């Protein structure tokens, strides 16, 4: 990525194919004649199987109709989409001209369970197994626990049985020390996977870094800013507009103070896990991203300054080709929408993708089959040219990954990268009539949904619409599974009584008690007057934020974290001022 790689209106081609005839009329005519010849043979075969060839149609998992075979003329009406190159706008064929040839995708498993030092042990273990980020850097993809997501501390009654579950029990600056002491903060990347406790989590990390003497400018990593997902996830949340403003607050702060920090993650994965089709995932991801970008522009930010710090987390599920084409279509749509929004730096138009292979399609039945499924998912992501990957572990439907299952997931990536020859050529599927045609199909289907969202005033104004669409797809999927029209091996076909014994991970039951003791000790030992003064300032800063002020909330929270305020305490202030309720 060159800093000078800018696109101006004059050099942005409407079509790189303009002025040339990519497919001559004669060529098209020959292609159509060939299709007729093929069609006769196909219909004949179909008849043998008792199928009427003329009415025969197959559909992708999203419901898009596909032909039994594709020909050059199937992509002839969009020559600008065929005449494309990896690393060139609109990036259908990938962001990077070399794709994986000098730097493979990053292996980024999500880590987080139990106490911070337990998570740290898994971090160190996976790093020793060859988990590497971009440019060979150390990279940690860390997920916070459910208690933290809910904006509570571990001693809250509702936290019982959930401390350190599905994430790490980290609630304070002190817990950050337990997690990161001894690691070179200025030479590593940390993704903080948090939900609506996004700001307190960043504040703890910043307060901790400051105590370590590491300038914030040198910190690399990611905040998720997943507020928009309250449209399709049933967790308690801030109202949609407040969520969008909180995202803009973090983006504004980081734009000024943390140039290496990625500020927003567009979480298509969560949409597809909630039931969205691939087409919906593309449409709603772009709709959320563009709406949030407008929210930032409204607060006076320049799209070329903040858009390059947006990232995407995209699912890779069972329909191999549709999932690949989804990513190609997403890159094209996003690049064009960002250009329309006023971005001119190509980095502002990039869909940097962390693939999370689907967990929803993994099964508790015959769990080792999931190794095969996730290998196919990872293959699809690699063929689509994503930047980073987390492969779900085979015990996904059973529990938090064991060390063994986490290692297997890493090995899948390493085998694909280093044994299969997959990384030899950039966009190896580019130019496949089917792949290009399906990419076009997904693009237009997604744009229809996107336009509907825009008609409703933009993403944050129509959470109910988004939810209803995704839920309808979830129901349809399940009905198809129940009717055996969507096959899940081991669930509705090839069911076996034979049980595959696999080890099931369990979080140390002592973790909860220790986490509670720690938060109690923290409260007992902290300088109360310093804490009170800092919390009072967080209250005032939140009031000013609610009144429209930009940029004051994170600094106030950092001071509070430095005075040993907890995630639960900081979130309580936000909840009180901004509203907090189940989304539906």
């Amino acid at each position: 990525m060159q800093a000078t790689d800018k696109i101006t209106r004059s050099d942005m081609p409407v079509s790189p194919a303009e002025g040339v005839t990519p497919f001559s009329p004669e060529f098209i005519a020959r292609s159509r004649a060939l299709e007729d010849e093929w069609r006769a043979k196909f219909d004949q075969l179909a008849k043998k199987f008792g199928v009427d060839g003329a009415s025969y149609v197959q559909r992708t998992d999203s419901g898009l109709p596909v032909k039994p075979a594709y020909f050059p003329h199937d992509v002839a009406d969009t020559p600008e989409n065929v005449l494309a190159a990896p690393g060139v706008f609109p990036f259908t064929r990938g962001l990077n001209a070399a794709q994986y040839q000098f730097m493979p995708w990053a292996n980024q498993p999500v880590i987080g369970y139990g106490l911070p030092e337990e998570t740290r042990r898994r971090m160190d273990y996976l790093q020793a197994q060859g988990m590497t980020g971009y440019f060979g850097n150390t990279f940690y993809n860390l997920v916070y626990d459910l208690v933290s997501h809910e904006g509570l501390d571990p001693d809250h009654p509702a936290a019982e049985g959930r401390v350190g579950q599905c994430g790490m029990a980290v609630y304070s600056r002190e817990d950050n020390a337990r997690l990161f002491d001894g690691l070179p903060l200025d030479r590593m990347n940390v993704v903080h996977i948090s939900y609506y406790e996004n700001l307190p989590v960043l504040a703890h990390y910043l307060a901790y870094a400051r105590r370590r003497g590491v300038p914030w400018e040198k910190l690399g990593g990611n905040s998720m800013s997943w507020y928009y997902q309250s449209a399709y996830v049933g967790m308690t949340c801030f109202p949609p507009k407040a969520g969008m403003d909180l995202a803009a607050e973090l983006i504004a702060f980081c734009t000024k103070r943390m140039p290496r920090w990625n500020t927003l993650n567009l979480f298509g994965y969560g949409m597809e896990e909630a039931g969205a089709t691939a087409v919906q995932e593309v449409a709603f991801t772009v709709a959320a991203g563009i709406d949030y970008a407008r929210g930032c522009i409204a607060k006076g930010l320049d799209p070329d300054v903040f858009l390059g710090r947006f990232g995407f987390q995209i699912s890779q599920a069972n329909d191999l080709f549709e999932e690949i084409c989804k990513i190609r279509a997403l890159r094209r749509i996003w690049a064009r929408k960002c250009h329309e929004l006023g971005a001119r730096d190509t980095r502002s138009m990039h869909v940097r993708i962390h693939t999370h292979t689907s967990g929803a399609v993994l099964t508790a039945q015959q769990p080792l089959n999931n190794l095969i499924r996730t290998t196919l998912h990872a293959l699809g992501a690699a063929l689509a040219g994503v930047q980073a990957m987390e492969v779900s572990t085979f015990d996904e439907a059973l529990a938090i990954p064991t060390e063994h299952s986490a290692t297997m997931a890493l090995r899948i990536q390493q085998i694909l990268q280093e044994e299969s020859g997959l990384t030899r050529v950039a966009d190896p599927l580019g130019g496949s009539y089917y792949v290009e045609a399906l990419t076009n199909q997904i693009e237009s289907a997604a744009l229809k949904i996107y336009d509907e969202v825009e008609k409703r005033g933009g993403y944050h104004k129509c959470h109910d619409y988004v939810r209803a669409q995704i839920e309808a797809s979830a129901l349809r999927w399940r009905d198809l599974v129940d009717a055996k029209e969507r096959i899940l091996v081991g669930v509705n076909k090839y069911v076996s009584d034979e049980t595959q014994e696999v080890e099931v991970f369990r979080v140390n039951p002592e973790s909860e008690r220790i986490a509670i003791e720690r938060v109690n000790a923290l409260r007992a030992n902290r300088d109360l007057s310093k804490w009170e003064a800092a919390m009072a300032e967080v209250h005032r800063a939140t009031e000013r934020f609610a009144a429209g002020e930009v940029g004051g909330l994170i600094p106030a929270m950092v001071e509070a974290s430095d005075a040993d305020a907890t995630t639960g305490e900081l979130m309580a202030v936000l909840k009180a001022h901004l509203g907090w309720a189940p989304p539906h």
Partner: protein
Amino acid sequence: MNQRIIRVLLGKTTMEAHDRGVRYLATKLREAGMEVIFINFLEPKEILDAAIQEDVDVVGVSSSVEGHLPVAREVTRRLKENGKEDVLVVFGGVIPERDFAGMREMGVKGIFGPGSSADSVVEFIRANVRPRRVHAE
């Protein structure tokens, strides 16, 4: 025939992102003619308050992220304390087999893991729900 409609309370902790299964089940139970009340709860006592208020026949809790044991303990204990032990308690989601026996002992009658069909839940409820009460005319 004055067959009483079966009333079901389905709950999921607000902390949990996984609500696809339970919301699907809600739709399927409604299609099967049951009345379904769905709540996101923070603390288990909220389920009980709702169960009593709504006079339900079945309480179903979805859990895919651990924390099911304290919820099961609290719900079954409070139902008993309130003389509601005839309310059918079922759990679904990702619940490790090692916890099944303990939960059954508490009074959880049905546990439905990943891949369970909605039909199997409907059948189970119909077979195990308390006999309909005779309404004095």
